[in-house]
């Protein structure tokens, strides 16, 4: 760090640099405390034995100089100047017993402490940065992370899920193949199923319409579908030899009954 250089014994160089810094690098100071710290170096003494009075004078001279050079000083430099002027007067005048608050010496001691602390922090900061650093002086393993973070998704299903799934399909209320999944169509398969269940009781001739499923007679479309499929199913059952079917004339009602004797 630059400050450390100033503490070496090449004082002439340091002084010259410091003097230059005062004028040229006004903006380079990190605030009034930093400036005070730099100024204090010209006293070449332990910061604890620093003459705050002298420092205050130096600071005020600096501010005057800056003014004469028409350098714009930030407000906090001016505030510090005012405070130091106040401190200077306190240090020079005998203490007023009626006045409250810390004495000029106490204020000066605290300022000295602050300067010493700032100086100390700069030194340790420099020591810290001079340490061996990761990625510069020592190195972590170069290869990318070997730890695999695998996210594994497992799908589970229990036997119960499986059986319930199957049961759900097999007991679906109106189970029909999806191609026939139309509300108003009574399929021949359905009719056949229904007829098979009914023909056992059809000992007497009965009208085809009496075999239509319930609820299918009101809507004409449904009626037509149910009639057609029931008729087709009847023909199928006739073909299989389970049923006899007759019609007296064209457009007369179609009647059917269970076949009791084998066909000739």
């Amino acid at each position: 760090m630059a400050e450390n250089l100033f503490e070496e014994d090449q004082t002439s160089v340091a002084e010259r640099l410091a003097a230059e810094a005062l004028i040229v690098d006004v903006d380079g100071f990190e605030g009034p405390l930093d400036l005070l710290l730099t100024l204090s170096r010209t006293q070449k003494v332990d910061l604890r034995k620093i003459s705050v009075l002298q420092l205050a004078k130096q600071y005020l001279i600096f501010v005057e100089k800056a003014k004469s050079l028409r350098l714009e000083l930030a407000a906090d430099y001016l505030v510090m100047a005012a405070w130091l002027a106040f401190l200077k007067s306190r240090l020079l005048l005998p203490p007023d017993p009626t006045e409250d608050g810390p004495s000029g010496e106490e204020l000066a001691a605290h300022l000295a402490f602050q300067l010493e602390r700032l100086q100390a922090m700069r030194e340790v900061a420099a020591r810290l940065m001079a340490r061996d650093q990761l990625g510069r002086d020592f190195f972590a393993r170069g290869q990318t992370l070997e730890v695999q973070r695998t996210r594994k998704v497992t799908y589970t299903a229990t036997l119960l899920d499986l059986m319930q799934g199957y049961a759900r399909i097999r007991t679906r209320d109106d189970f029909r193949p999806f191609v026939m999944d139309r509300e108003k169509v009574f399929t021949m398969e359905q009719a056949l199923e229904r007829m098979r269940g009914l023909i056992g009781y059809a000992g007497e001739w009965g009208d085809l319409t009496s075999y239509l499923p319930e609820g299918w007679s009101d809507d004409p479309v449904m009626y037509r579908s149910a009639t057609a499929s029931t008729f087709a199913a009847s023909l199928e059952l006739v073909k299989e030899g389970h049923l006899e079917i007759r019609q007296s004339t064209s457009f007369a009602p179609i009647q059917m009954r269970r076949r009791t004797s084998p066909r000739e």
Partner: protein
Amino acid sequence: MSDADDIKEESLFEAPPLAEQERMLEAILFAVSEPITLREIEARLPHGCDAAEAMVYLRKRYDGRGVQVVRVGDAYALRTAVDLGYLMQKETVETRKLSRAAIETLAIIAYHQPATRAEIEEIRGVSVSRGTLDQLLELDWIRFGRRKLTPGRPVTFVVTQGFLAHFGLESPRDLPGLKELRSAGLLESRPAFGALPMMGEDEDEADLDNVAGQSELFED
């Protein structure tokens, strides 16, 4: 350049002791991000080092350790010992329920195997998405069975050993039957229909689809 100069140069760059070379080699192998060749290592080492020789010692030193010097082509790298790889895996297992479509499809295959896609669709009453079958195949719960000897020679699906193992079954025959399902209260209302009406054309259609899509994969 004279002989004297040569000698002087050599002595100036005297190689560090082998033990030190081995340390250097170790540090380099550790820090580099890629496997590194002996030539590259030597370029980093002080003049006069013998990377090959140091490597012999280093490999010996790591012999049987948790970290190994492995050869990758003509380069070297440090790797964790293969048998300890399991320590490095941080697995987060996420368990998801199988979708309803997948469960039903699986159930149909289990109860009806070998089952064609068309048959599954017929029973479920909706078409089976490719993803569902893929998922079941991936889970190793179903596999392709023999092609059916029906027109189109559709592929069939059967359940696997993995399926049986997962569901704790000894054989597909151990699947509870409809009667048992019913008595267990799993089947509610109505009795199952007898024969399922098969839709001839549809099956063919779906099969043709299958054949077209998978013929390269499953023709046997």
